[in-house]
C-alpha cells in the first residue's frame, strides 16, 4: 500500500532512545488529529517494540534499530521496528502472554500490549538475523471543517 507520508529513523539500541522513539511516533501521528487515548496507545506500543530491540535483540552490544512510520489511506498509521540482533527462535511462543526470557525485570507482556493497543501486529524473525515488528493502527476520523 503506498504511503501518504512517511519517515524513517535509525538509532543505536540505547535505552535513552526508548522515550525518543515513542515521542517521535506521537509527533508524526499529530497530523491525524488523534485523541489522547489513541496517542497513549501508540506511544505504549512503540515503547514496547523498541524496548524489546534494546533489551533482547542486542543483549551484550549496542546495535542498530530502525523505526519506520507510514501514514496509509483511511487514517491508518503503520509502525515498523526493525533490528539486526539475535532474533527469536519461536515467535508464536514469544508472543504468548507472560512468556519471557528476561527474568524478574520483565513481565512478558510486551507483545500482548502491542496486540491490545493496535489493530494489527505482525512479527517476523530469524535467529541470528534479526526481528521485524509491524503494527497498524486505525485512528478515528474526527470532524473535519
Amino acid at each position: 500500500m503506498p504511503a501518504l507520508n512517511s519517515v524513517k529513523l535509525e538509532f543505536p539500541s540505547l535505552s535513552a532512545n526508548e522515550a525518543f522513539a515513542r515521542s517521535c511516533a506521537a509527533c508524526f501521528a499529530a497530523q491525524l488529529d488523534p485523541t489522547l487515548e489513541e496517542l497513549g496507545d501508540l506511544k505504549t506500543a512503540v515503547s514496547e517494540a523498541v524496548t524489546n530491540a534494546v533489551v533482547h535483540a542486542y543483549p551484550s552490544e549496542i546495535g542498530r534499530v530502525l523505526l519506520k512510520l507510514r501514514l496509509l489511506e483511511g487514517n491508518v498509521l503503520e509502525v515498523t521496528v526493525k533490528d539486526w540482533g539475535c532474533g527469536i527462535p519461536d515467535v508464536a511462543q514469544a508472543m504468548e502472554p507472560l512468556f519471557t526470557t528476561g527474568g524478574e525485570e520483565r513481565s512478558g507482556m510486551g507483545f500482548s500490549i502491542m496486540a491490545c493497543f493496535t489493530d494489527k501486529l505482525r512479527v517476523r524473525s530469524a535467529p541470528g538475523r534479526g526481528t521485524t515488528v509491524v503494527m497498524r493502527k486505525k485512528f478515528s476520523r474526527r470532524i473535519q471543517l
Partner: protein
Amino acid sequence: MKITGSCQEGVLTLRFQGELDHHVSQEVMAALSERIDAFLPRKCVLDLRGLSFMDSSGIALLLRAEKKMRQLEGSLLVTGVQEQPGRVLRAAGADQRLGITE
C-alpha cells in the same frame, strides 16, 4: 522520573513523577528498595498521580515492589493511577494482582 516521599507511622508514601520505562526502571527499583529497607514500613503507598506514562517495565516494577512488601509481611497500595498507566495495567491484567485505589 522523580520520586519524593515520606514515612509516617509505618506508612511509606512515595510519589512518582514523570515517565516509567525500561530506561529508568532499574534506578527506580533501586531507590524504592532502598527506602523500603530503610523504613521497613508495614504499608507502602505508591502515589502515581504524577506518572504520565508507563509500559511493561513499569508493570514488572510494581509487581516486584508488591512482592517485596509481601515478603516483609507488609502490603503495597497503588493510588492516583492516570489514564495511560491504567490502560496498560488493565491490558496486562496486572490490576488484578495489585491493590489499587482511587
